[in-house]
C-alpha cells in the first residue's frame, strides 16, 4: 500500500467510523445479545439481576404456548389476505395511473396521499368507518339494500384489517409507476404492430419487464405484513377474543408488558426464521418468474 493509498484508507475509515460504531452499538451487538438472551431468563434489570442461562427452555415453552400458535396463525391468515390483495390493488392502480389521461398527476397525488397520514390518525379514522352503527361502510351497504356488518367483531375483524391495509398502498403504487416508466415504448409499439391487444401487451410485455419491481414489492410486503403492530394495537387491541392478536403484538406483550425479555428474544428469532424462509422461498422461485434485463 502506497503512502497515498494508506492516507486515503485512513481518511475513508475516519468517515466510516461513526457509522460503523453506530451500527455495532445499536444494531449488531443488540442482535447478538438478543440471540444469547433467547436462551436466558432476562428482564432488562442486569447487572442487578443478571441473565440466567436456561438453555432451550424459552423455545420449549413457545411450542406449548397457545397464544404463540394463535398469533402466528392470525399473522399468516392476515398475510394470506393482505399480501395478494395489496399486490394486486397497487399494481392495478399503478397501471390505471400510468394511462395518459388529463389530470394524471392529481389522481396520482390522491392515491399517494393516504400513505402520508400517520398510522394512528388512519386507525382512528377507520374506527369510525368500521363503526357498526354509525360507520360509513355500513351506511353504504344499507344504501344498496345489504345488511350491515360488525366489521370489528370476531368474524370480520381480520378481513377488515386486511381491507384497511389497502388504504396505504400509495408507496407501492409509486414504486410500480417508476417501474412502468422503464417499459420500453418501442417494445409496446412493436407488439401493437404485431396485432397484440392491450391485454396481450400487458401480459406479454409490461408484466415480464415489471417482474423485478413486483419481486421487490413482494419481499417488502412479506416483511411488512409480519411486522404489523400499530394499527391492530390501536383499533382492536388484539381482540375480540384474540382474533387480531398478531405475532408482533404477542412479542411486544411478552417483552414490554410481561417483562420476559428472554422469551421475547426467542419469539423474535423465530419471527426472523419464518421471514427468512418466506423470503428465501420467494428468492428461490424468482429464478422462474423474475426477468432481469
Amino acid at each position, binding site marked *: 500500500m502506497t503512502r497515498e493509498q494508506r492516507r486515503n484508507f485512513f481518511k475513508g475509515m475516519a468517515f466510516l467510523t461513526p457509522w460503523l460504531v453506530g451500527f455495532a452499538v445499536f444494531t449488531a451487538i443488540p442482535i447478538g445479545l438478543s440471540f444469547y438472551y433467547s436462551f436466558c*431468563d432476562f*428482564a*432488562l*434489570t*442486569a447487572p*442487578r*439481576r*443478571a441473565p*440466567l442461562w*436456561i438453555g432451550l427452555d424459552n423455545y420449549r*415453552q413457545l411450542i406449548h404456548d*397457545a397464544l404463540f400458535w394463535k398469533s402466528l396463525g392470525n399473522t399468516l391468515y392476515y398475510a394470506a389476505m393482505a399480501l395478494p390483495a395489496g399486490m394486486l390493488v397497487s399494481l392495478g392502480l399503478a397501471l390505471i395511473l400510468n394511462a395518459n389521461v388529463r389530470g394524471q398527476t392529481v389522481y396520482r397525488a390522491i392515491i399517494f396521499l393516504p400513505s402520508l397520514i400517520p398510522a394512528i390518525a388512519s386507525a382512528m379514522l377507520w374506527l369510525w368507518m*368500521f*363503526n*357498526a*352503527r*354509525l360507520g360509513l361502510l355500513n351506511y353504504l351497504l344499507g344504501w344498496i339494500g345489504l345488511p350491515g356488518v*360488525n*366489521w*370489528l*367483531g*370476531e368474524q370480520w375483524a381480520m378481513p377488515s384489517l386486511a381491507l384497511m391495509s389497502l388504504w396505504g398502498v400509495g408507496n407501492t403504487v409509486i414504486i410500480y409507476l417508476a417501474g412502468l416508466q422503464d417499459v420500453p415504448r418501442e417494445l409496446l409499439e412493436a407488439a401493437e404492430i404485431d396485432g397484440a391487444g392491450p391485454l396481450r401487451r400487458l401480459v406479454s410485455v409490461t408484466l415480464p419487464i415489471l417482474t423485478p419491481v413486483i419481486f421487490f414489492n413482494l419481499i417488502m410486503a412479506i416483511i411488512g405484513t409480519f411486522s404489523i403492530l400499530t394499527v391492530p394495537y390501536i383499533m382492536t387491541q388484539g*381482540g*375480540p*377474543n*384474540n382474533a387480531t392478536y398478531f405475532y408482533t403484538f404477542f412479542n411486544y*406483550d411478552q417483552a*414490554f*408488558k*410481561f*417483562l420476559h425479555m428472554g422469551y421475547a428474544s426467542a419469539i423474535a428469532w423465530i419471527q426472523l426464521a419464518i421471514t427468512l424462509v418466506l423470503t428465501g422461498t420467494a428468492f428461490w422461485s424468482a429464478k422462474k418468474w423474475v426477468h432481469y434485463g
Partner: protein
Amino acid sequence: MKFVKPVIFAMLAVVAGVFLILGSRQSASKAPPGFTVVEYWEKWVGPEAAQMQIIVDDFNKTVGRQKKIYVHFMSMTDIDQKTLMATAAGVPPDITGAWDNQIAQFAAIGAVEPMDDLAAAHGITADYYLPVFWNACHYNGHLYALVSTPGTVALIYNKRIFQQCAGQLRAAGLDPDRAPRTIDEFDRYAAVFDSKNPDGQIDRAGFCPVQGWYVPQESFWFGGNLFDPASDRLTLDSPATLHAFQWIQNFSKQLGQQSLMEFQFSLGNFDSPQNPFLVGKLVMQQQGPWMANYIAHLQPSLSEALCPKSEEWKLPDRTANYVWGVAPFPSAVPGQQDVSYNSFDALMIPTGARHKNEAFEFIAYVNRQDVAEKLNTMHSKNLQLRHASEAFLKHHPNPYIAIYQELAASPNAHSVPAIPIWTEVFKELTDAGQAVSVEGVEPLVAVRQAQQRMQAQYDRFHRIETERQRLGIN
C-alpha cells in the same frame, strides 16, 4: 475555498458541543443552586398531570425549600417501559409513578427499591394507611411503593333512567328510588333497562360486563380471591370465579352474542362525549370516583339537575343535583356487604436512583393527610388513608365520595394480588371473559384453561427463581 470544509466541520463541532454541554442540564435549570434535584416521572397526561404539577410546586415552595430538595416533574406515556429502560441503562428517575399491578412485577426483577425503613422513619405505617392499600404496596414482606391516588370501584347508575322506567321497575317488584342490593336484584334491574330496536340492535343496555374494565376482577363480587397467599397458588377456577364467568355469559345470552358485540363496537371511548353511560346507552356500570370529573367535563348537565354545580352547596342534599347515583356494587354472596375492588397509582423508587432519601421526602409529602386530600380532591378520587376529614368529604367533586371511602375501608375490600405475573393473569382472564361472552365458550372450560395456563406460568417463575437462588444469580 480550501477553508470552507474545515469551517463547516468546526461549526458542526461547536453546535454538537453546545448540545452536549447544555442539553443534560435542562432539567436542573429551574432548581435553585445547591438544591438536590429529584427526577419524578409520572404516567398522567392532561388535567391529571397538571394537578400533580400543582402538588410538586407546593412541595418545592415549602418542604423542598426547607430541605433543599427540588422535584422536577415529567409527564410521559408508557412510563413502565421508560422506567425500565432507564433503570437498565443506569440512569433511572428518582421516583416513578406507575400502576399498582407493577409493584410485584418490578420488585420481583429488582427494578425498584424497598422503602420499609424510610416509611417507618416518616411515620407512615399500617396504622396510617387503609389495609387494602397498605398490603397491596408490599411484595415478599417488603414495602415497595406508596399510593399517590387510589380508585375504589362502585356501582354508578343513571337515576333519571331509573325514574323513566319506574313503572316497569315497580311491575317487576323493584324500587326505582334506590340501587340494587343483591346480584339477583341487579340482574332484574338490568333486564328492565335492556331495550332493542326493531332491527334487533341493542338501543340501551342495563349492564354490559365485557364493555367494562373489571372483567378479571368480577370474581371478587362472587366471593373469590383469584390468588391464595397461603398456598401460593392461583385460584382462577374456584367456584366463585366460575360463578362470575357464568354471570358474565348470561348477559350475552340474554342480549344475544352478535347484538352485544355490535353494541360494544359501536360505543364511544370512555373519555369521549360518546361514553355510553354519558349518552344514556348504558344504565349501570362499575366505575371509580373519577367519573365525577369526566361527567363534569364531558356531560355537565348530568351533574346540574337543579342548579349550576358551583351553587349546589345551597341545597340541603347536594346529591339531588346529580342525575347519576353511586352505591356499593352488590355481592353474590349472601350477607357479604361492601365488596370492592381497589386500584391505585403507585409511587416507587427505581433501583439505582441517585437521591433515594430525597425522593422519599416527596413520596411522604404526597401521603401527608392534607396533601393527599388536596390531590385526591383534584383527581376526584378517594383516600388511601384511614382518616378522611369532614372538609374532604363535603367539598369533594364526587358527592358520593363517602361511599367509596367506606368501600375501601371494608373488610371485603380487594386489590390486585401481589404476584409478579398479574399482568399476564389479567390478560388471560380478559380473554376468558371475551371467550365466554363472544364465542359462547363454556365458563368452566374457560376458567380451567386460564388456571392451567397461568399456574404453569407461575410455576415456571418459581422454578427459575429457585434456580437463581441456587446459583446465587439474583
